């Protein structure tokens, strides 16, 4: 291509990169040799799903129930980490709770070495999510959905939550909602 030819920017169609939650709680995988059931939050739906999983799993293999108030709480976090460290290959980790908490548990499990075949999850609601701010580079819990605008709890910018969930960070990507209207490079904010 010569420099005089006009350059047409090719924008690929958006790839679906949102969590695909099952409509009903997934069944207990009978091939496992142990189970870790993680329930976050105290609502009745979470308790009910966790209870049903434990009742089924206990009849098949050794089962650990981990009940957490909040994944961000250091003591709760330590309990989850310990359960994952104790887990042996052959385990299935099952998480239930609100979307933010379930994603946090799945991310912790993946960090501990789990792969998709070893994970199952059920969200009792999708009212909140973990959001990664591209500017303050931290993950925050926000009550919003992809496509919506929120004020970043970290840096106070107005952010748009993009319809992109990144597993590596365990978060939805968010960036300045009005950056496109800002002045050019000389006046750009960092």
């Amino acid at each position, binding site marked *: 291509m010569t420099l005089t030819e006009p350059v047409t920017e090719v924008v690929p169609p958006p790839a679906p990169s949102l969590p695909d939650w099952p409509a009903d709680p997934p069944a207990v995988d009978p091939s496992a*040799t142990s189970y870790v059931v993680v329930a976050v939050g105290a609502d009745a739906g979470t308790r009910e799903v966790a209870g049903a999983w434990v009742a089924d799993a206990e009849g098949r293999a050794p089962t650990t129930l981990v009940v957490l108030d909040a994944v961000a709480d250091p003591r709760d976090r330590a309990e989850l980490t310990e359960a994952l460290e104790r*887990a*042996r*290959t*052959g385990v*299935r980790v099952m998480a239930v709770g609100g979307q933010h908490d379930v994603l946090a548990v799945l991310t912790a499990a993946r960090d*501990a*070495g789990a*792969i998709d*075949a070893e994970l199952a999850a059920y969200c009792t609601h999708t009212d909140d999510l973990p959001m990664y701010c591209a500017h303050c580079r931290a993950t925050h819990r926000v009550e919003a959905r992809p496509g919506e605008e929120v004020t970043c709890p970290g840096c106070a910018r107005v952010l748009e939550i993009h319809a992109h969930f990144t597993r590596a960070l365990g978060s939805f990507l968010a960036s300045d909602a009005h950056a496109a209207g800002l002045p050019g490079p000389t006046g750009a904010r960092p």
Partner: protein
Amino acid sequence: MTTLELLVTAAVHPVPGIRSLTLAAPDGRDLPGFVPGSHLVIECGGRSNAYSLTSDGTAPTSYTVSVLEVPDGSGGSRWVHRELRVGEVVTARLPRSLFPPVARAAKHLLVAGGIGVTPIVSHLRAARTWRRETEVHYVFREGRGAHVDDVLALTDGAAELHTDRAEFCARLEKALADQPLGTHLYVCGPAAMIDHVLDTARGLGWPESRLHCERFGLDALDPGDPFDVTLTATGTTVRVPSGTSLLEALETSGVDVPNLCRQGVCGECRIPVAAGTPLHRDLFLTEEEKAAGDALMACVSRSAGPSLEVPL
């Protein structure tokens, strides 16, 4: 460059029945690097045999392979043992990787049987370089263990050596039941041993994607039913009798199909299928690829029905 001319610079018999070759470029230049677990396809007196590389794959100036003599085999290993001499040049393909370590694994559980230790040695060299956590179980016949010194040195003596099959099986089951989350299993050895290890792991809840194996080749296959193959490019139909492979039938009728191992391992003779249902008998295609039914390995696979169409 698809082939390498390699000079045999050294050859030793470390244990009875095994000859280890050191190969280098005749002019001493660097050789292509390779991924741990890779193998080299060497032309062995008219046969092409695949041998796992046991040396370090980073910027190598030489390759080493260890060859077990198989007295009732097709002759390649006998040629390496009895004909090939130091100072001679062999032709080899570039190293091929079909048994690589998983970089994200939290731990690598390596299980070797007999001469199947060769790719495991290569894995251990890389594991040492990258400080990967490993656990090794190596079962071999008393007095016939190749690379035992390498395995012990690369694991600081932690490798578990087994010469009793029953004791190995019992220890293996315990080991498979007690691995941290994130462990990947790698097994290489005789077919029956690989099947036993993988079945034990599956029974203990290991997901398929954590299991990795390298097979030497297929045990003798049944001759199969005869079928017709239609070549859509020319419209001709070729009969494939029982006992003749599709690859042989195509070659006889003047169709060249690239091939190497001729035993369903290397993946070289893969041909597309336009119509008909393949009867897969290879070790190369994944389960998904086999289910798709749009390609087969002509050296071992056949037709499930009376005819097959290939766009050749």
